[in-house]
């Protein structure tokens, strides 16, 4: 299945980055094997591949975080071997890493300029920071991405995960780099900001910057990326000219099988049209508020139902989840679980009562780094793998983990591998497994498929549907409206911590036209514009 690599014919810009035969292996497991690709001046070069295919490893090497076992890469003809990120940045390679890498203790501004602060010249001495100048330089860009002047002075720790992502993007865009690497910048990012980002990417391209762009959202590629290089199991396969290649072909290459429209097929089998009245109510909120973040949230969730929650960054979606779980306290309102009022002092009680949550911030709140994959999967329901209710059986644990490893195709040499050594997507899968393993009756998922490859995405969706079809109920928070549409029966739109719109019976409205309409509605609602056809 060799594609005609039309590159040479179509594009003739000079090669700016030439990656040659780079290999890297960890504990005898190859993460990269002779990966090679060429990025040309003013080119958006998509890097695609399943979870654990080796994309981030390559990026780690390009940006000096890790050193390759063999191979080299040339930047504008001269060989480059950055020993640390400093070297890479100095030579013009800027990176947005897959995992949030901002400094909690510093303000937005300090983070954006971290490592290249502007200094005032005072009495011939260059010591004092020039905050004003820094602000002026970044404010425009920041505001485009919805970061207010004041937010520049707020410590990062105060922001929700999405805001952080946006800040990171702004940070990357303020560098003038020769090579800009974006490792899944859009995962969990919402429509509007994606478009902004894409504009800026095009803009940079026109300025001759070479962009390396890792994404799992294949539908984003067309009309933006020029070339796509496909990774599988650490090897680079083809470099496709995207003008003449379909999503189908790409997924085939990614997973090495003949599947038509892998990952996009979900549209054809939605959940059955249903009527919530004949299903028992599982969870219901009555005027739940958390001062400053949430106001008068009320809804009821029925068995077998999925409620999707949409909204912009900082709308309060994550907070809502945290409040239901009892991680953050609510200041007023009631929560009923199966008719009984509940008031969880901590998430432990929520789990006991049968509510599980998949957090949004994978790195900080999701994985328990330092523990193995198996240990991460079992942690929320240890009794399921223990004898006499208190002695943990490694064997049971391993079996459990291996089961999920198969189902979700978590790519790791062994379930005893430390989870922080896994690829981003594989980590996400492991946490999904953890939630499911806690056998909940209500599942709260904040950005379920961020960083998960298309194939696994359908699997995750499958698992959620399977979960609800067995009588479970789920709350899905997702910035991708598409994803909400595929999963949920009802969509709530949040703005400034209160529900500004409900779209019911999403399932009835299959027709493409309606889908587009809903998207428009949701966007408008969350952005706060008035709508012609009120719901």
């Amino acid at each position: 299945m060799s594609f005609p690599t039309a590159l040479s014919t179509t594009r003739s810009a000079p090669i700016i980055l030439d990656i040659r035969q780079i290999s890297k292996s960890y504990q005898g497991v190859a993460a990269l094997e002779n990966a090679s690709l060429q990025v040309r001046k003013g080119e958006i070069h998509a890097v695609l591949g399943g979870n654990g295919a080796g994309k981030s490893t390559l990026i780690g090497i390009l940006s000096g975080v890790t050193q390759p076992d063999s191979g080299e890469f040339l930047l504008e003809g001269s060989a480059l071997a950055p020993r640390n990120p400093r070297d890479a940045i100095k030579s013009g390679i800027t990176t947005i890493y897959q995992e949030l890498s901002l400094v909690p203790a510093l303000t937005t501004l300090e983070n954006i300029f971290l490592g290249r602060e502007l200094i005032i010249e005072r009495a011939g001495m260059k010591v004092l920071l020039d905050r004003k100048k820094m602000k002026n330089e970044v404010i425009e860009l920041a505001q485009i991405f919805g970061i207010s002047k004041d937010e520049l002075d707020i410590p990062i720790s105060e922001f929700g995960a999405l805001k952080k992502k946006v800040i990171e993007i702004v940070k990357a865009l303020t560098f003038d780099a020769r090579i800009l690497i974006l490792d899944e910048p859009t995962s969990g990012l919402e429509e509007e900001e994606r478009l902004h980002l894409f504009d800026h990417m095009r803009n940079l391209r026109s300025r001759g910057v070479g962009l390396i762009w890792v994404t799992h959202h294949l539908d984003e590629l067309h009309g933006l990326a020029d070339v796509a290089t496909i990774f599988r199991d650490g090897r680079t396969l083809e470099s496709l000219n995207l003008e003449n290649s379909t999503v189908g072909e790409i997924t085939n290459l990614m997973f090495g099988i003949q599947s038509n429209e892998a990952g996009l097929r979900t549209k054809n089998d939605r959940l059955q049209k249903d009527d919530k009245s004949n299903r028992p109510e599982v969870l219901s909120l009555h005027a739940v508020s958390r001062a400053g973040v949430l106001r008068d949230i009320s809804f009821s969730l029925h068995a077998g139902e999925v409620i999707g929650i949409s909204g912009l960054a900082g709308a309060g979606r994550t907070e809502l989840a945290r409040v239901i779980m009892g991680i953050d306290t609510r200041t007023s309102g009631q929560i009923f679980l199966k008719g009984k009022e509940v008031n969880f002092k901590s998430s432990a009680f929520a789990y006991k009562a049968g509510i599980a949550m998949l957090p949004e911030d994978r790195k900080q709140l999701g994985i328990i780094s330092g523990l193995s994959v198996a240990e991460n999967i079992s942690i929320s329901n240890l009794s399921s793998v223990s004898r006499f209710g208190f002695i943990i059986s490694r064997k049971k644990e391993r079996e459990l983990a291996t089961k999920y490893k198969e189902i979700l195709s978590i790519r790791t040499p062994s379930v005893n591998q430390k989870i922080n050594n896994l690829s981003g997507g594989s980590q996400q899968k492991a946490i999904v497994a953890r939630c499911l393993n806690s056998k909940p009756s209500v599942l709260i998922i904040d950005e379920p498929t961020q960083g998960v490859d298309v194939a696994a995405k359908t699997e995750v969706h499958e698992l959620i549907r399977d979960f609800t079809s067995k009588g479970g109920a789920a709350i899905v928070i997702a910035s991708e409206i598409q994803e909400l549409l595929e999963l949920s029966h009802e969509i709530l739109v949040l703005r400034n911590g209160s529900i500004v719109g409900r779209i019911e019976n999403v399932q009835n409205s299959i027709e493409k036209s309606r889908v587009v309409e809903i998207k428009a509605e949701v966007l408008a609602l969350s952005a706060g514009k008035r709508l012609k056809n009120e719901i």
Partner: protein
Amino acid sequence: MANQRFNISMKKFLSDPILGVIILLLLVGGVASFTVEVFFTLQNFTNFLSGSYFVMLLAMGMTVVLISGGIDLSIGAVMALCAGIVAKLALQGMSVPLVIVCALAVGAFVGCLNGLLVTVVGLPDFIATLAMSAFATGILFIWTKGTPIVGYMDETYKQIGGLAPIYREVTVPMVIAIVVAFALGAMLKKTKFGVHLFSVGSNRLATRQSGINVTNIRILAYVISGVCAALSGIIMAGRNTTVPPDLGGGYEVLAIAAALIGGASLMGGRGRILGAILGEVVLAMTINIINLLGVPSSYQKIFIGGILLLAVLVNQLVISSRTKILMRSTNKK
């Protein structure tokens, strides 16, 4: 918008770690000034403050290290060692400025060693600095063979030690402490290095990924605390009028306590110079009050423990009430 701005300034003010300490000081001081008449007198304050400048210096240095995400258990011993150097060199008739320079150099050097052990060699900071304090003490013991170094004192060292003021109530230690405080304060708030310190302590990996030489920053943090220890050693030499081998014992713990009360965190990325100073003032004031009240010395430890708890409890109270206030302020939108 205005609301948000108010909110932010409000946050800034309320979320300041030292707010709790200030309130505590007012509290304890208030109570004391009613129970002990002489407490609220200039003389008393200059008294117990003059006994605390050298710990303040230690606490400031410690704060810098804590911010960078480390810990320095060697400062007590380093202080003693530098005091020893001052005494020894002074005895050999070296001129005061030269003596001071030497002491500072040694402090910086030991700090540098700490830094290298922790970063380059990759030892746990706890072990590296603990061993370093063993070295420093050991050297002092070898020098002194167990008998204190004596006979170096003269008027200048009396002044350096704060036993003799330079102008009315103003003493050298006071001046040094104030100067260092302002210098470090400015460094943390207004310079690139300051930002990088917080950055390293808060998220080392991200800092590295931003192309910052994390190793240098961390080493420098230890150097700073080494220099602070040296300064406090110079003062100590003058104040203690002799240098016994076991001079430095236990001061590192005091310094850490002061820094933590002042809002620093063992997890790194947090800390205030002013906080460290006030933290030490709290500790010194406690002893002062104990002495003035004439608490039987057998109950002193319990008393100290109580005050320590009170200190952090008040801090905690302030923080919780702060969040409440903030919520209310954000509520009325």
